[in-house]
């Protein structure tokens, strides 16, 4: 990459369009006094290649002093060809480069041809000032190695020093050999130590807890024991309280039982035998009295019974028949009414028939005529009348047709217009011939044709009307009239014959009108209705007679007062029957009462005898108890009763809650096993013993509470289980931490040795090349450069010509030699960094100013050699130096 021309619109002190176009492609020499703008050009070169840092015009140190902006164009020759780089910085950076006809927007990014070298590296290596050249030893060199050599080319990889530093820090977080400060293993070990101490304490605590636990167990056992004793004692004392009264009662019971006299006999008598005897005697009197009263009532009841007569019994026996006939009597009355109604209708019907027949018949209505009417069949009559009427009608129709035929005969006449036309035509024709006029002829022929046509039509019509078919039709109609006339005659005869027995005049038949058949049919219907009514009358009459006969026959077995009419008898019987039924019911109730009274009388007798026997038996027993004395017996029974009542009371008390047997058993048992409980002295002593037990219990409980409190207090700290678990966890953590530290230590060592190896593999080329440059600069005084590591510190060794052992570069070396050594190494590094890529320009700012003439010449010779590969920018404020360079490189200075 070689820069040819700058077109500066605004950059630092350059404003208003400064162009620098005489830049040499190998060695560009910028000369100017201080603040003339040499550093500005140096920064311009960097801005061309890497853009603006910072990227805001108000912050950028080279914003135009007048306009507050930056804008420039640089023309450069690269391996790919000529390019023009345009960059501008206002509020935002802009940038593009043009190669050939292609333009690329690069914004504020580096040019692609110098992207292999970062801006940082370019700053450090490619731009050199005289003061840089003394920084060669120690950290500076390591930095060069780390940043610029070892991990160069992979910007993502950190420098080995940082990685090792991190690893060391990480390791030291876990463990430190010095043991100073805070680190994990120390903390874990401290905690483990602490826990182990706590564990010992916990062991002691646990022992105390165990002892306390054991004592508590003993106390609890003793408490249980005492409580059992207490319960037993209390139970016995309670038992004593319960059993002592029982025992007393049992003794009382025994005494009472001993005082009873002839108890078996006494028990067979009521305890209130004195009152009982009086009561029994009173009962006897009362029964006697009641019996006599009952007998009296019985007799009264017997007198109340109604005796039934023979007639009453007959009526009761025919109860059903009487009820039936009394109901049937109403039916008989209804029948009589119906008969009268039918009779009335028959009479009315006969009158109507007589009246109707008077208009139609020639004779007066008689049974013979009625019979004939009864024999008439309505359908047959209807057919005969209808046939006759149809025949008459058809005849009438035929006659009308025939008359019509005769009347419709055509009378066709010839129209006079035809004749006149014929005459006129002849005249015209004639005139035509006469006059020789064709028009007349033609008109005449036309009119002739018309007249001839009409006449021919008339003749034809005449012929047609006078044909044979017409005549045949008329004959056929005449024949039909004749045939129908014959048929009418025959039908009339048939009708007359059917109605022969009925006196109807022939005239009526022959002049039959529309009312003929309905009149006949009406009479026929009335005759039929009359017959039906007569039949109905017969049925009613026979049923009525039968019922009436039954009633009369039934009533004939009873005797009635003469003044009672026949129709009222059946109802009289019905009323009598109802009265009798009531009487029978009363009699039945009296019978039941009589039976009950008789039973009572019998029971009174039995009861009397029974009481009498009991009274006798009591007296016998009392005499036996009283040794023949009734009063003494009575006294003994009464005394025994009192004793028994007392025994009973005691027994009831003992039986309270159904525990008597159990209690008695217990009393017996305790009399044998614990007789002391029935002794007042002994129970008192036991109560005192109970008090002592209570006191001991209280003391033990106090001791237990104290021990429990002690246990709680001892348990407040971490439990042994917790401590041991924590110890296990910490030991695991410690092991993991140790492993991690060991792993990191190993990794650190691996990285360290890899780094050494890498440098070993890569350094020689740089050192070799650097040695060559150093040899050139020092005019073969020094031949080689080496790197030696001693006590983690790297030292540069140089070998003088003819010497076998390299010499360590120390501060006693001349400043010039050190500068030259550094320059040689820098140049060698630059070659290494640019290898196989675009060779970037280098900048020397007053770099060679302190060198002696010989080494200056040698250095310029070296630069001349280098300028073959890359462009060199030299900035100086010394005229002699500028001249020297002008001569050496055959270039002209660019004055600023």
């Amino acid at each position, binding site marked *: 990459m070689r820069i040819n021309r700058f077109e500066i619109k605004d950059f630092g002190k350059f404003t208003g369009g400064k162009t620098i176009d005489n830049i040499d492609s190998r060695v560009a020499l910028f000369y100017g006094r201080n603040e003339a703008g040499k550093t500005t050009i140096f920064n311009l070169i960097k801005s061309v290649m890497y853009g603006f840092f910072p990227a805001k015009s108000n912050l950028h140190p080279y914003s135009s002093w007048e306009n507050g902006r930056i804008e420039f164009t640089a023309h450069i020759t690269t391996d790919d060809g000529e390019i023009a780089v345009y960059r501008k910085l206002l509020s935002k950076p802009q940038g593009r480069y043009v190669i050939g006809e292609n333009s690329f927007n690069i914004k504020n990014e580096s040019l692609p041809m110098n992207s292999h070298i970062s801006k940082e590296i370019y700053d450090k290596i490619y731009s050199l000032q005289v003061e840089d050249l003394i920084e060669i030893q120690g950290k500076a060199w390591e930095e060069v190695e780390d940043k610029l050599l*070892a*991990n*160069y*080319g*992979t*910007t*993502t*990889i*950190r420098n*080995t020093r*940082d*990685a090792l530093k*991190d*690893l060391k820090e990480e390791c030291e977080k876990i*463990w430190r*050999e010095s043991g100073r400060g805070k680190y994990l*293993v120390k903390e874990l070990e401290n905690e483990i130590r602490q826990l182990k101490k706590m564990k010992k304490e916990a*062991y002691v605590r*646990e022992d105390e807890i165990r002892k306390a636990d054991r004592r508590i167990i003993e106390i609890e056992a003793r408490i249980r024991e005492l409580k059992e004793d207490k319960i037993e004692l209390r139970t016995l004392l309670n038992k004593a309280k319960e059993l002592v009264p029982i025992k007393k009662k049992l003794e009382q019971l025994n005494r009472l039982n001993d005082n009873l006299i002839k108890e078996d006999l006494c028990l067979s008598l009521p305890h209130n035998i004195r009152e009982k005897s009086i009561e029994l005697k009173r009962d006897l009197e009362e029964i006697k009295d009641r019996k006599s009263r009952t007998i009296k009532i019985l007799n009264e009841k017997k007198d109340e019974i109604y005796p039934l007569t023979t007639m009453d019994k007959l009526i009761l026996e025919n109860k059903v028949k009487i009820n039936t006939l009394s109901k049937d009597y109403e039916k008989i009355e209804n029948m009589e009414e119906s008969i009268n109604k039918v009779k009335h209708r028959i009479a009315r019907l006969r009158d109507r028939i007589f009246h109707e027949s008077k208009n139609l018949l020639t004779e007066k209505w008689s049974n013979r005529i009625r019979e004939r009417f009864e024999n008439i069949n309505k359908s047959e009559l209807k057919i005969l009348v209808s046939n006759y009427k149809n025949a008459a009608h058809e005849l009438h129709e035929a006659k009308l047709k025939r008359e019509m035929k005769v009347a419709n005969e055509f009378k066709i006449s010839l129209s006079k217009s035809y004749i006149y036309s014929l005459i006129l035509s002849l005249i015209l024709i004639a005139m035509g011939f006469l006059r020789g006029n064709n028009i007349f002829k033609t008109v005449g022929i036309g009119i002739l044709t018309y007249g001839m046509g009409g006449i021919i039509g008339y003749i034809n019509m005449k012929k047609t009307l006078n044909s044979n078919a017409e005549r045949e039709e008329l004959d056929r109609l005449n024949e039909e009239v004749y045939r129908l006339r014959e048929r009418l005659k025959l039908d009339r005869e048939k009708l007359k014959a059917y109605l022969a027995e009925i006196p109807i005049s022939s005239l009526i038949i022959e002049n039959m009108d529309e009312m003929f058949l309905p009149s006949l049919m009406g009479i026929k219907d009335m005759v039929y209705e009359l017959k039906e009514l007569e039949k109905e009358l017969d049925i009613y009459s026979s049923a009525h007679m039968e019922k009436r006969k039954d009633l009369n026959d039934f009533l004939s077995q009873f005797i009635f007062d003469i003044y009672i009419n026949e129709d009222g008898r059946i109802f009289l019987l019905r009323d009598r029957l109802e009265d009798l039924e009531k009487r029978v019911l009363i009699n039945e109730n009296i019978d039941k009462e009589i039976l009950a009274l008789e039973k009572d009388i019998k029971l009174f007798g039995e009861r009397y005898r029974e009481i009498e026997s009991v009274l006798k038996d009591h007296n016998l027993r009392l005499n036996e108890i009283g040794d023949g004395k009734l009063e003494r017996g009575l006294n003994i029974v009464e005394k025994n009763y009192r004793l028994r009542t007392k025994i009973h009371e005691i027994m009831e008390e003992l039986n309270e809650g159904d525990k008597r047997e159990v209690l008695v058993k217990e009393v017996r048992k305790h009399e044998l096993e614990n007789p002391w409980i029935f002794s007042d002295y002994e129970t008192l002593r036991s109560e005192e013993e109970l008090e002592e037990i209570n006191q001991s219990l209280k003391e033990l409980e106090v001791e237990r509470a104290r021990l429990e409190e002690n246990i709680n207090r001892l348990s407040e700290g971490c439990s*042994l*289980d*917790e401590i*041991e*678990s*924590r*110890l*296990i*966890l910490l030991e*695991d953590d410690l092991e*993991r931490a*140790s*492993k*991690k*530290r*060991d*792993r*990191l*230590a*190993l*990794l650190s*060592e*691996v*990285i360290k*040795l*890899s*780094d050494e*190896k*890498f440098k070993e593999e*890569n350094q020689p080329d740089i050192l070799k090349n650097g040695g060559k440059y150093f040899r050139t600069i020092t005019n073969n005084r020094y031949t080689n450069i080496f790197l030696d590591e001693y006590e983690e510190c790297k030292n540069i060794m140089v070998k003088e010509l003819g010497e076998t052992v390299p010499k360590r570069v120390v501060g006693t070396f001349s400043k010039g030699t050190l500068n030259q050594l550094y320059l040689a190494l820098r140049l060698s590094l630059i070659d290494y960094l640019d290898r196989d890529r675009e060779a970037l320009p280098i900048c020397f700012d007053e770099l060679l100013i302190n060198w002696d003439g010989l080494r200056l010449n040698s250095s310029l010779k070296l630069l001349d050699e280098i300028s073959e590969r890359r462009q060199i920018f030299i900035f100086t404020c010394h005229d002699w130096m500028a001249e020297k360079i002008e001569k050496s490189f055959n270039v002209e200075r660019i004055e600023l």
Partner: protein
Amino acid sequence: MLKFLHLADVHLDTSFYSKNENLRKKLRDGIRKSFSKAVDLCIDEKVQGLLIAGDLFDNDRLSFKTEQFLIREFCRLKDNNIKVFYATGNHDPGHMSYRVNSIKWPDNVYLFKDNEIKRVNIKDFNGETLGRIISCGHRTNNDSKNLVKAFPQREGKIPHIGLVHTMVTNVRDSENHNRYLPCSKEDLESKNYDYWALGHIHKRLKVSDRCDIYYPGNIQGRHPRETGKKGGLLVSIDENCDVKVEFRTLSTIEWHSININGLEDIKEYSQLKKYISNIISDYIKENSLLSRELVLRVELEGRAFLKAELSLQENLEEIVEELTLDMDLLELEIKVDRLVGRIDGEDYKGGNHVLALVLEVLRDIGEDEEILNRLLEIPLLKKGIGKREEKIAYIRELLGGIDEEAVGYMVGDRYEDK
């Protein structure tokens, strides 16, 4: 035929790895339940003896409750005519000053409580000898003498069973255990016994390929490293001295540990929860586990987008709580200290930079003696690894998956900021 159940390291009343007091109580009860199951098994299988190879209880602070429980269980065995052969271990030594002596054991219990080697014959109902138990116990909690050497050689044809709580020094998994009453595999083999019932190592282990020498492991896991099903060995020795050994699960609560990778593309909480939940479910299904009897440790490792979020205790507690509830787990612990940032180490392999070389060195570390020697010189915190092989094994263990961490440190924040 002689049939017996071999138990060891029951550690009744031991302490557990848990912050949760309820869980500790469950685990404590769980051991008792497991022991009851062992007694049930003895009764169901009609064994002649129950062999306990030491550490029946954890220390002298055995609770009265557990003491009563033990006596009750042994009485159950007595009721079924089953003998108990109990050799004391370093946790329950048999000296007069220790707890074993203050317990009134039922008369079916044969106690081997000191260094004296005793022989007891097991007889059937007819008085015929079915086998011989040769055993000694730990007298104190610090017996370090090799007593196995003094055990008598096998005599006669009857089955010989050695019962001892010992540390076999030359078997795998021995390095993490204290060397109480130590012996070598060869010492045991040389006795020509039919079966050696050992105790001390908490992991089920067959000591020899040549002889039947077994550690049954403990009866229930106590912390996240004692994982999987735990129980006892049901042993049958027939007339021809053919030995049949069968493991029977007795643990009621199991500890398991799962390592979960593949968190690189998980960018939100619900996705993370679902991912972990699915893996746990699959694990439970594959191993036919009962979630409510499962104490699970989940070790998240590898690249994780949510590394920073997961390093916050509050977030971790949230996910642990939700997963425990959702999956009905007895307890869940999630460890995140093996997580690294979301950078793919593959991207940095083969480059011309130090990281590429670091990855290369880590890859070839086993083959490069010089590098290994340099790493061996690093002072390590891990204790009890003196031998070179032990140290190499430890270094190899530590370097497993360390390349991701290397990338994390070498790329680190600068990458993530970008």
